[in-house]
């Protein structure tokens, strides 16, 4: 809570150096998404599970009349299952997806290094979602890029489900 009060001053001071991002928690992890990619935040909506999808896909929900896949960020980043406090609607190149997150901490200017310098940190399929790693206070902060977060089969399943009455 105190971090909310400190964030604007910190953002103003480093406006030209970092990236303006929306900082949130995903299980034990502290994550951020560039503000440009964020459409809106909302309370968690009802999600219908999809068969044949990876475990980090919670299912599919409807955002403003559009079927949208729901990605569990904590499970995606290997932090284990966590309760969703918020949904973040994020733009991707194949459409809007919903990220199920923990508490939304606010908008920060995040200074993150590219992930290429630390390939050992983010191995596996998830590494493609992490754009860079920074810090927020004493905690590590993962700057996410959502463009390739959702596998294609999910989009396909979402498309199939969009045709069904929900």
């Amino acid at each position: 809570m105190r971090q909310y009060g400190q964030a604007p001053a910190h953002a103003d001071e480093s406006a030209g150096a970092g990236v303006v991002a929306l900082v949130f928690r995903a299980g034990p992890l502290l994550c951020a998404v560039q503000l440009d990619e964020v459409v809106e935040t909302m309370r968690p909506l009802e999600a219908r599970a999809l068969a044949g999808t990876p475990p980090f896909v919670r299912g599919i929900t409807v955002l403003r009349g559009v079927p949208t896949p729901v990605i569990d960020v904590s499970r995606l980043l290997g932090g284990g299952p966590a309760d969703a406090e918020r949904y973040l609607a994020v733009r991707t190149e194949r459409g809007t997806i919903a990220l199920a997150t923990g508490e939304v901490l606010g908008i920060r200017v995040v200074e993150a290094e590219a992930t290429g310098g630390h390939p050992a940190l983010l191995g596996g399929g998830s590494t493609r979602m992490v754009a860079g790693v920074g810090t927020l206070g004493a905690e590590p902060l993962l700057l996410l890029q959502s463009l390739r977060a959702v596998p294609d089969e999910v989009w396909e399943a979402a498309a199939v489900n969009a045709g069904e009455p929900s």
Partner: protein
Amino acid sequence: MMAERTFGTKLAAGFGLTLALTLLMTATSVLTLRYVMNSKDNVITSARVNLVGSEELNGHMESRIADYRAYLLVGTDEYLRAAEQDRANFLAEAGRLRESMTDATSQELLDAVTAAEEKHAAVLTPIMEQRSRLNDLRNVTQLAGNQELKAARIAVQQALAALIERQSIVVDTRRDESSSRATMASAFIIVIGAVLILGAAAVAWKLSRDLRREVGAAVGHIQSSSAQLEAAAAQQASGGRDQASAMNEITTTISELLITSRQIADSAQRVSKIAEETAEAARTGDATVEQTRTSIAAIRTQVDQIVQHMLALGEKSQQIGGVADLVSELAEQTNILAINATIEASGAGEWGRRFAVVAEEIRKLADRTAGSAKEIRALIEDVRGAVNTTVMATEIGAKAVDSGSRQFDDATSSFRRIAGLVSTTSDATREIELSTKQQTTAVEQVNIAASDTARVTRETEASAVQTKQTAAHLSTLSSELLDLVGTGRH
């Protein structure tokens, strides 16, 4: 049976028996004398009337003979009348004799005399007529029938002589009978007298024997009793001395007891006073207990009200929690809206950044509001917990008050019982005090009585000595009386 009667009764019976025998003898003697007297009277009557009558009859006959002889000689009427008078007297006397005579032989002889006299008169009458016709008698031969007259006269005289002799014989016979009866009466009286003397002697002997035996036995008893009385009096005298000394000790002990009783009475009075003060304190304590009961009831009411208020407080806290939830909800919505506004504003250039600042401030406010709402919620939960704890504690307190009230009721009843017992104790103490005072009075009376008893004991001792002397004197008198009675036992 006689042994059971008193000596006076026996004496009276003996005298009565003697008197009865004496009366019997007197009556018998009187009857016997009367009997003898009657016999003698019969003899005398027989002698006087019959014998004398016979003699008079003879006299009248002789007088008639003389008179009619004189007439025959003289021839005067004087002698004739005299002769007729003599015959009338003769007949009258013969009539009386016939009535008085009881002897059959005498009656027959009298009849013979009467018949001879009739015959004589029958012979005489013609001769007398012859003489009346003769004016001058010069010879007896002038008169016829002289010889017949003589025979008739001799027959009459012989009959009269036989009658007189018979009467003499009758008188003698009756005299002899009377004499024999008198002799029998005398013998009878002598026998009766002997019986009387024997009976009186027997009664006297019996009375004397009983007197000796009974009076001797009684006097012997009196003598032995006197000896026992003397011994008892001696013992009583020594016992009286011992009793007098013991009574002195008793008097001393009773005096000490009197002092102790007075001390007890004083102590009982003090105890009674203390008991009354205790009873007064118990009554005061009873009032205090009653006030405490009222206070406990008020506390119970207050505790109930506290529970009600606490429940109302919990309910209000619940309502506040609902409002806080609503505020929290609004804050969360505001937070979401502010973030979204910031996101929207971030793509709107300079004006967007200004709006983003405003939106960020709104979001901060919303966060603070949410935090405050959460704190309020936590505080309200604390309040509710505290209220629940308070309600539970209050109910426990109410139960404790109830339990305390019950215990206090028990304590009150115990206290009242104590007060009652104290009252009873006070009464008992008063009774003890009264009883002790009465006891003291009684002990004083006993002391006086003991002093009197000691005095009486001394007097009794003196009396016992005197009784001993009197008993000795009585023993001596008994010996003398035994000598007098004749038993003579010493």
